[in-house]
C-alpha cells in the first residue's frame, strides 16, 4: 500500500509529465528522454508508464520512438492517439486527405526497398498515380515534417514521425490485403 505522501508526489509528477508532453517546446513534437529526466527525476520511465495507463480513458497513450543509439536518453516520448482516427476525423487534421495516399505509397515503396529509396526513383513511381506537382510538393512537405528523411545523396528513408505515428506493419498488411477481400489489422 502506498503512503499518502508518496501518492501525492506521484500524482504531482504524473501531472507534470502530462504537461511536459502535451506542450510543444521545440520545432518537433515530443520530449527527449534526457529532458524528461531533468523534469521528473531518474525514475521518469515509471512515471511515464503510470501516465500512459491514465491516458487510456482519454484514448491516448505515451509512445516512445527510439533514438539513433537506442538509449532511453535519446528516445523521443510523445502522446498519441491510442486508436486510429476515422477518415472523417483524419480530414480535420490539417493534412489534405489526398496527400495521405501519397504518404502511404511513399512509406510502402521505401520499405519495399529495404528502408532507402532514391528520391527520383520514388517520384517516378508516384507519378504513375499522382500528378507531378502533387508528388514534388507532398514529398518536400513530408520531409520537412519528419515523415520522411532525405540524406545528402538524395536517398529517402522512413522518418522519426512515421515511426512515431504509423504502425508500419499494419500499413503494409493493409496494403497487401486490399483488393483480395481480406483485411487484417494486426
Amino acid at each position: 500500500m502506498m503512503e499518502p505522501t508518496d501518492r501525492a508526489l506521484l500524482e504531482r509528477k504524473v501531472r507534470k509529465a502530462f504537461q511536459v508532453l502535451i506542450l510543444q517546446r521545440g520545432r518537433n513534437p515530443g520530449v527527449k528522454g534526457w529532458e524528461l529526466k531533468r523534469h521528473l527525476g531518474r525514475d521518469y520511465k515509471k512515471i511515464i508508464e503510470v501516465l500512459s495507463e491514465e491516458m487510456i480513458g482519454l484514448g491516448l497513450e505515451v509512445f516512445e520512438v527510439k533514438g539513433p543509439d537506442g538509449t532511453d536518453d535519446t528516445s523521443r516520448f510523445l502522446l498519441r492517439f491510442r486508436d486510429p482516427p476515422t477518415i472523417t476525423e483524419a480530414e480535420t487534421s490539417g493534412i489534405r486527405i489526398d496527400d495521405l495516399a501519397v504518404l502511404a505509397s511513399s512509406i510502402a515503396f521505401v520499405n519495399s526497398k529495404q528502408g532507402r529509396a532514391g528520391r527520383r526513383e520514388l517520384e517516378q513511381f508516384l507519378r504513375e498515380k499522382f500528378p507531378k506537382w502533387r508528388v514534388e510538393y507532398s514529398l518536400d512537405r513530408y520531409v520537412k515534417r519528419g515523415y520522411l528523411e532525405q540524406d545528402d545523396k538524395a536517398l529517402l528513408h522512413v522518418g522519426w514521425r512515421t515511426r512515431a505515428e504509423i504502425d508500419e506493419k499494419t500499413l503494409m498488411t493493409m496494403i497487401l490485403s486490399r483488393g483480395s477481400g481480406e483485411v487484417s489489422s494486426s
Partner: protein
Amino acid sequence: MDEKKLEDVLRVIELCRSVQGSSANPFDVDIREKIALLKKRLPDWNFLDELLLDSEAMLELAQIVRLQDEWLKHRASALYIDPFLVQLKVRLLSKEELIEAFVRSWHPIAQLDQISPQGLEKAFSYWRDLQPLSERFRTDFGNYGVKPGSIDLEGLLKMRVFTQEEFDSELKSLYDELMEKSGGEWVDYREFIDKPKMEEKVIRAYMLAFLVSEGMASLKTDPLTGKVSLMASAKKLGGTPKSVAISITGES
C-alpha cells in the same frame, strides 16, 4: 606511382559510393575480395597520398558493411515483403483504398501549440531589432532590386568598364568605321551596331551616343517606319542637340 594499381583502389571507392548513393543491394559488393585487394596493394604505397587513398577505400568498405547490417535487420523484420509485390499492390490500389490503409494504421500525435512568455519575449526582441525592409535588402542583396537609372562616362570609368585611353581609342576607331561605311550616305543604325554578343552591341550603341552628342555624326529617325539612320560627319556639327531614345534588344 603505379597508375594501374591506384586505379584498382579508385574503382573500389567508386563502387562503394555508387552503392551508397542508390537503393542497390549492398551485398553486391564483395567485401572479402576488396579487402584482399587492398591488402595486396598496401606494400606498394610509398607516398602519403597513396596511403590516404587506401584509408579512404577502407572507410567506404566500412560504410558498405554498415549498410549490409541495416539491410539484414530490415529483411529479418516483419516489414520485409517482396518489393515487386508491394509496388504492384500500390499500383493496383485506388487512392481511396490507400487512404483507408493509411488511416487505419495511423496514430496522430496529440499536442498543444501555444506561445510561452519566453517565446513572446523572443518575438518582441526580434521585432524591436528588425531593420526596415529597405535596409535588409541592402545588406542581403547589395544593389539588387534597385530601379534602373543612368550612368555617365565618369561612372563607367570609376567602375573600370573603360580607362579614359581605351575609351578615346575605341571612340576613334568607331568613328573611322562609321566614316568608311557611310561615306556621306545614311546607314542603318541597327545594322551598324549589330554584333553577336549583346554586351558588344550595347557598348557600340553607347559610344555612338557620344559621337552624335559631340557632333561627329548625325542621326535621324523615320517616325512612320521607326527606322533609325546614321551618317558620319567630317566636320563637327553645330546646332541644338535633341534627345532620342532607342531601345536595344538581343535581336538584330
